């Protein structure tokens, strides 16, 4: 025999407008086991909470139902209220009479009836609830940041500044990511390197940051508070501490390959440093092209290296460490224009990607900041910038808007005008999207002050025509078809999830959206959390973003990680799945269904077990379990049946 108290919220007019609260109270007060009913204008307000607390004490309530909004909104609020009144917080349930009733109905009489049913059903559930206690999992007070672009750098610095140990893992030889390749940034035209490199240096010097470049995360086990991570540190073949960056080795190296840092527009040697400000400041040998990995063929660099920094026998190291929280900042890759047939499949020499143009604009780029076209090195006099190249084209390419291309194409056009004063810059656009601080002003400045030409329309075809590129398109404002010749075409290509993002998603069992970007736990309210507790996402790994957004998100992810690292123990919700061994036939259905990897088969015990720290209590396994052996605490078959029966009662 329970003593249930029911508290009904008006939510201003949100509920009361469509639900006759008085009638609800009248009806519910006679329901079996209900000893107290009360209403409030705003149950979540301080006075509303006091009503509940006092009623629990006065009427010695042992179960509480709050009929108000969604659990997502205020379950925590009312659990805390219950706890403060001395009752176990899991003996409180919320009846959702707003989102699931008043907001979706107009007929007051029927909505009132439904409200009564919802409350009765919740009473049946709460009567069957067990008192539960949250349990503690220990926390390793260290964070892992995966990806050393601007987002990863910012997250690592923030966490390290807060006083926690951070390991930053970067796949490439240096941190810096894509931002290190940019010339200037919109809308301020700050030199990208100038604002990035101080942060890179700070990472290299920070006493709390362990920097592992040329390294990859191989495997992650465990759960929030104690992720067991295996990191592969690939051999650099150059001892970082000994290398003085004298560049003697570079001169003798006989192998010449495309330089990735310059988007393949310039050569580099097999022993190289990505760019002068690289962190760590050390050369690296690219083992796929170096001849000297077999020193019998070539060891020229080793011969000339004074500080004896070159070691061909270096082997991959495996580092195994525990971390309390993980930030994924694995960034993006650029949509390959080789996939765009109408723009020549990458075969037209003077059609380049946005990133290639960035390098041409860059003072430390292949042309030292002089715009020269790839075919003959001449300075182009007419440059066409094509927005949405491979974007917003669900039939053939990316369906989505990559968010930054309008702005970077505008920036390119403006920078080009700054460098080639008599040049003509023409932008073909679908819409110019300038949603950002000072972005619209930047676009206006380009169009109105800097004489950048904007044509609304899509370019349908690019063709090589002698020395020039023939552009066929349409001006959709005047409905005229356009044919013009340009010296050079820059494609504002969209953003794709990087390969690393895909790999890490698999390793961490993160959910990804249909495009392959990491899915947030909630697109609006949990933008830096992932479905895996303790794993956060920052920067373009979760979708296209500009730099300020990536940095803000990184700080957000860092703050989230810090909340986990801030104590030795983590409180976990005890509402999780339980397996009954008596009926479990070990069919393995649940193991695959679990989105959190929380269920596993233990060979020694010959049992299927739930990892309490990983289980998020979603109930997928309970629904799927063919033998009915899995139940969610406080959502047992019995209690769900009782709730449904109450709903169906006539």
């Amino acid at each position: 025999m329970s003593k249930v108290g029911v508290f009904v919220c008006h939510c201003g007019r949100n509920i009361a407008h469509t639900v006759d609260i008085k009638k609800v109270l009248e009806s519910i007060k006679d329901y079996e086991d209900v000893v107290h009913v009360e209403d409030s204008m705003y149950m979540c307000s301080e006075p509303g909470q006091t009503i509940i607390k006092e009623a629990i004490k006065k009427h010695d309530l042992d179960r509480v139902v709050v009929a108000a909004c969604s659990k997502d909104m205020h379950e925590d609020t009312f659990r805390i209220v219950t706890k403060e009144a001395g009752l176990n917080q899991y003996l409180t349930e919320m009846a959702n009479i707003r989102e699931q009733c008043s907001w979706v109905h107009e007929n007051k009489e029927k909505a009132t009836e439904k409200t009564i049913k919802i409350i009765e059903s919740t009473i049946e559930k709460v009567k069957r609830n067990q008192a539960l206690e949250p349990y503690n999992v220990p926390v390793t007070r260290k964070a892992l940041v995966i990806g050393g672009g601007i987002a990863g750098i910012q997250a690592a610095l923030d966490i390290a500044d807060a006083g926690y140990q951070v390991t930053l893992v970067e796949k490439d030889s240096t941190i810096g990511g894509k931002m290190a390749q940019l010339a200037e940034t919109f809308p301020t035209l700050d030199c990208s390197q100038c604002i990035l490199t101080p942060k890179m240096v700070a990472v290299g010097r920070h006493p709390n940051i362990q920097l592992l470049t040329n390294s990859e995360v191989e495997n992650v086990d465990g759960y929030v508070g104690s992720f067991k991570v295996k990191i592969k540190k690939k051999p650099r073949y150059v001892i970082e501490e000994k290398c003085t960056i004298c560049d003697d080795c570079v001169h003798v190296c006989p192998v010449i390959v495309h330089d990735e840092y310059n988007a393949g527009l310039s050569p580099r040697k097999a022993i190289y440093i990505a760019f002068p400000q690289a962190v760590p400041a050390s050369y690296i040998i690219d083992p796929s092209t170096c001849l000297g990995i077999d020193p019998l063929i070539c060891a020229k660099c080793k011969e000339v290296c004074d500080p004896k920094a070159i070691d061909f026998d270096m082997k991959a190291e495996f580092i195994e460490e525990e971390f309390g929280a993980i930030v994924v900042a694995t960034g993006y890759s650029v949509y390959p224009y080789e996939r765009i047939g109408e723009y020549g499949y990458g075969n037209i020499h003077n059609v380049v990607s946005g990133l290639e143009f960035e390098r041409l604009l860059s003072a430390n780029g292949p042309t030292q900041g002089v715009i020269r076209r790839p075919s003959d090195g001449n300075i182009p006099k007419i440059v066409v910038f094509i927005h949405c190249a491979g974007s917003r084209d669900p039939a053939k390419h990316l369906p989505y808007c990559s968010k930054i291309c309008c702005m970077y194409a505008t920036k390119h056009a403006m920078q080009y005008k700054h460098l080639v004063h008599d040049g003509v810059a023409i932008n073909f656009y679908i819409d110019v999207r300038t949603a950002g601080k000072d972005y619209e002003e930047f676009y206006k400045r380009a169009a109105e002050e800097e004489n950048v030409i904007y044509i609304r329309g899509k370019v349908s075809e690019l063709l090589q025509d002698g020395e020039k590129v023939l552009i066929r398109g349409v001006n959709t404002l005047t409905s005229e078809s356009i044919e013009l010749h340009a010296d050079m075409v820059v494609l504002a290509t969209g953003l794709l999830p990087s390969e690393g993002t895909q790999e890490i998603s698999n390793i961490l069992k993160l959910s990804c959206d249909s495009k392959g970007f990491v899915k947030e736990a909630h697109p609006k309210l949990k933008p830096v959390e992932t479905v895996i507790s303790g794993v956060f996402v920052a920067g373009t790994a979760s979708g296209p973003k500009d730099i300020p957004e990536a940095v803000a998100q990184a700080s957000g992810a860092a703050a989230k990680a810090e909340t986990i690292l801030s104590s030795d123990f983590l409180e976990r919700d005890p509402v999780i799945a339980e397996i009954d061994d008596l009926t479990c036939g070990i069919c393995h259905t649940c193991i695959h269904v679990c989105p959190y990897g929380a269920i596993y088969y233990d060979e020694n015990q010959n049992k299927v077990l739930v990892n309490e720290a990983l289980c998020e209590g979603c109930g997928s396994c309970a629904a799927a379990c063919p033998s009915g052996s899995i139940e969610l605490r406080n959502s047992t078959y019995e209690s769900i049946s009782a709730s449904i029966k109450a709903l169906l009662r006539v």
Partner: protein
Amino acid sequence: MMKKINLAIALGATCAGCDVAILDLNEKILEVFDLVEFKFWPTAMDFKLDDLKKLKDKEVDVGIYHGAIRTTEDAKIAKILRQKSKVVVAFGACANFGGIPSLANMPFEQDMFDLVYKDVPSMDNPENTVPLTSVKINDVELTLPGILENADALEEVIDVDYFVPGCPPMVPLIEQVVEVLKLYANTGKLPPKGSVIAGTKTLCEECGRTKPEKISFKEFISPQEVDEMDPDLCLLPQGILCLGPATRAGCDGLCTKMNVGCRGCLGPTDKVKDHGLKMISALTSLLEVEIEEEMTEEELDKIVDKIPDPLGTFYRFTYGKSLIYKLHSEEELI
């Protein structure tokens, strides 16, 4: 000297496979004869219903009933058995869940008699003769029991003490029943009421095939469509529909050992009310689970459509206890 147990074996809508299964005890049947005094077993011995009726109430120690309740006669016999027996055992899938006869409870668009006696392609019935409950021949009225609207499990008609599922119950299970009878004869003790004499877990427990850590499948195929069956691997990842994960253990994997998917004759575990629904829930949870979100409803439907006769597949033996049947028959839902 132990007292012999009075045993009665009655039957309703049944194929009598359950009787044969009892005889399959082979030499162990001799132990049964030492143990029991048959008071009623019309299939095997010369008994008439009157022999059962003549007994005093509760004179039978153990009354076994197999078959579904399909006719008024079945219901009558069940009630008499209950009256004469101290404990009643529902024996076999039909008595436990309605069994195959209960598949006829599906909501047909036409009268079941018309379907069975006139419209099925194999029927040649030019005079449209259908069974009647009474007919007069030479002024003599002959009667037959009436058919009930639905075929039900025994429990729907009388109180049942023990359950032995299976189609038919396998010899090891019947041997367990013999052990129970022995214990009863020697000590007068019985298992708790409501006990199911079979495993508590599911078939996967005893099937012996190896299960991959993660089970998933892309399509359903029939065993004959498989190019090369892996004799040791779980059938589900090979695309063969197997109700084993949802079905009570106790048969020692008779079908799965023969590369045939479990058909579910032992019914669900104690925890599950609707056998077929639970299996559907499990299968659809696993189907292309990795890429499910990227697939369209149509693509998923296409795979599911390959399951022949879903109702007959998932409810072959348990339709009489299913929620859809109860919903149809407007009984209490849960």
